């Protein structure tokens, strides 16, 4: 509980500091004042039009991916199982890269498709791929081991298609595609934040309510059924929650790498728990993405995609935790 509160405070601080930091410098108090409605016209413009959409997007992406990662790692009882294995990320990537490569080449549709179409295509691709994984894994019920293996196969196929497109594309489109595939917050606006907010408002409470059954199902399928967990329904709810959260995040910012893996692992070690705590994982995800985005915006002359910095910041921290803290078995 204390850990969750501490991470919540950290998220609030990084969120505010993220709004304050940038080429036109505002103080933390200016930001808080403006948010409370006591800003100047200039500070209102900077905060509401320029900085807040991006900070909100970073916050939402981190929450979505952190929570989704905690859900998949827990239900599959495998720390390496990120939402990626449900096919949602590779489906979204394949959709988006197809749109970039084919749409970018046809000058008639290019610009409008790139601006508006990619999030839509990515969402459709991600959801379709996840539905395919779930359907293919169904054999009188979904077994968590089988769905992981099916996910590997589907992810590989879609990944192969994506890299084929990248290799065959013109260099400019290949660069655009590679940039999208790394994940970035630079293009976000309020329009890309709302779907994530909607996903979080609807899905997060449902997901958090599955915490109890998730804990029981750690003991194995037989024990869970014996203790009265409706296993197939529980599993479907968990998977659907993870898929929706991931699809919302990926279609807004691209596949921001590593957050869904590292946030639950860090949260679990901070809390000293046997499995990733759901709420704390989401908050750690938010802190990581927000820090990465501030660094991406301010520390380099050219802008670095946030997906690179989540790994550069998150990986050493996890390694440090690995060396200095002993965790449970998951």
């Amino acid at each position, binding site marked *: 509980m204390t850990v969750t509160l501490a991470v919540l405070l950290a998220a609030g601080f990084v969120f505010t500091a993220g709004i304050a930091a940038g080429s036109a410098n505002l103080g933390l108090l200016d930001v808080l004042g403006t948010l409370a409605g006591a800003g100047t016209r200039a500070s209102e413009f900077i905060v509401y039009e320029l900085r807040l959409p991006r900070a909100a997007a970073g916050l939402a992406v981190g929450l979505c991916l952190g929570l989704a990662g905690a859900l998949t790692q827990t239900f599959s009882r495998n720390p390496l199982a990120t939402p990626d294995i449900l096919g949602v990320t590779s489906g979204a990537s394949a959709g988006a890269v197809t749109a970039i490569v084919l749409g970018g080449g046809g000058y008639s549709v290019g610009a409008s498709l790139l601006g508006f179409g990619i999030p839509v295509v990515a969402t459709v691709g991600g959801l379709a791929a996840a539905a395919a994984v779930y359907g293919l894994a169904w054999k009188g019920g979904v077994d968590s081991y089988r769905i992981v293996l*099916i996910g*590997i196969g589907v992810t590989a196929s*879609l*990944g192969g298609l994506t890299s*084929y497109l990248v290799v065959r594309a013109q*260099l400019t489109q290949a660069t655009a595609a590679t940039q999208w595939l790394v994940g970035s917050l630079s293009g976000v606006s309020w329009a890309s934040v709302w779907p994530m907010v909607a996903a979080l408002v609807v899905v997060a409470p449902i997901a958090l309510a599955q915490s109890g059954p998730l804990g029981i199902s750690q003991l194995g399928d037989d024990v869970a059924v014996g203790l009265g967990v409706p296993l197939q329904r529980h599993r479907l709810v968990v998977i659907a929650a993870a898929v929706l959260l991931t699809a919302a995040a990926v279609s807004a910012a691209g596949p921001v*790498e590593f957050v869904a893996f590292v946030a639950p692992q860090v949260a679990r070690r901070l809390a000293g728990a046997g499995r990733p705590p759901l709420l704390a994982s989401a908050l750690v995800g938010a802190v990581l993405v927000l820090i990465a985005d501030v660094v991406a915006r301010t520390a380099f002359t050219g802008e670095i995609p946030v997906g690179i910095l989540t790994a*550069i910041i*998150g990986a050493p921290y996890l390694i440090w935790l690995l060396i200095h803290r*002993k965790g449970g078995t998951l």
Partner: protein
Amino acid sequence: MTTFGVLTVALLVTLAASLFLGSNPVSPATVLQALLDPATDTEAIVWGSRVPRTVLGLLVGTALGMAGTVMQGQTGNPLADPGLFGVSAGASLAVVLGVFVLHVNSLGLTLALSLVGAVIASVVVFGVAALGRDLASPVPLAIAGTAVSALLGAVTSFLVLNDAETLEAYRIWVVGSLSGRSLAEVGPVVLLLAGGLVCALVNARSLNNLALGSEMARGLGESLTRARLVGLGAITFLTAGAVALAGPIGFIGLTAPHVGRALVGGDHYRLLPASALVGAVTLLACDVVGRLIGGQAEVAVGVVLAVLGGVAFVVIVRRAKLAVL
């Protein structure tokens, strides 16, 4: 016929297909003549291209199938692939650094760089896991490997996105391909692969014991540190060799062990050779398909492998009674 009989026949068929089929139509009689008498191979298609490619496919497929089996046995994790300990990411970064900083464009040097990168990365991963606690539990190894791989991958993306020339070289290398190597370049790597092969086979008994859990393995008199070190040696040598020769081909090491397990069960004395055969057959078959569907512009084997292999793997997983790892 036994499973191994079927797999061996399949390997012979794909080897033949790899020698006789290609994007340049050469009649089977000409190929056969050139094979028997290299002097008649005037256009150097057979000895210059088909034979090195076939040898490469055999070596890389075998290596990745085995490395994946050792990796999954060591970590007890069905999602573990041979690149999990940072080997592929380390090799990729070394190659990109080579192009970016040193402007390397010779194949031999690229090969050497990727070997060095691979070995350094896996040593770092093992060091992190060893610093944290004793090596009994496989989980910290897997997590340390994922973290280090992601870090190296991020640095690679950083370099690649900032330099069009490097991106151009990287995006082709990273897909994985069997073409463009000569037998002379393959030679030194064979030694490395042979070392890995021996380590893997020596590790088979330990892997069988580890499958029962670390505690049980210790109870059976297994030295866990030794078992882990031998396994790490096998994984690093086999994967580093394969990545150096063909680029980071990811899919085979991840899936061949699952197919092998569905065919022969979990005993590593049978599983290691079976996965090796599955790996070699899959890689060679996909390479042949890639040559045939692309016309003169061949489709890289990594792409065919992921697309077709992914579909085939889904079918197998749906049909098979899964032996849980």
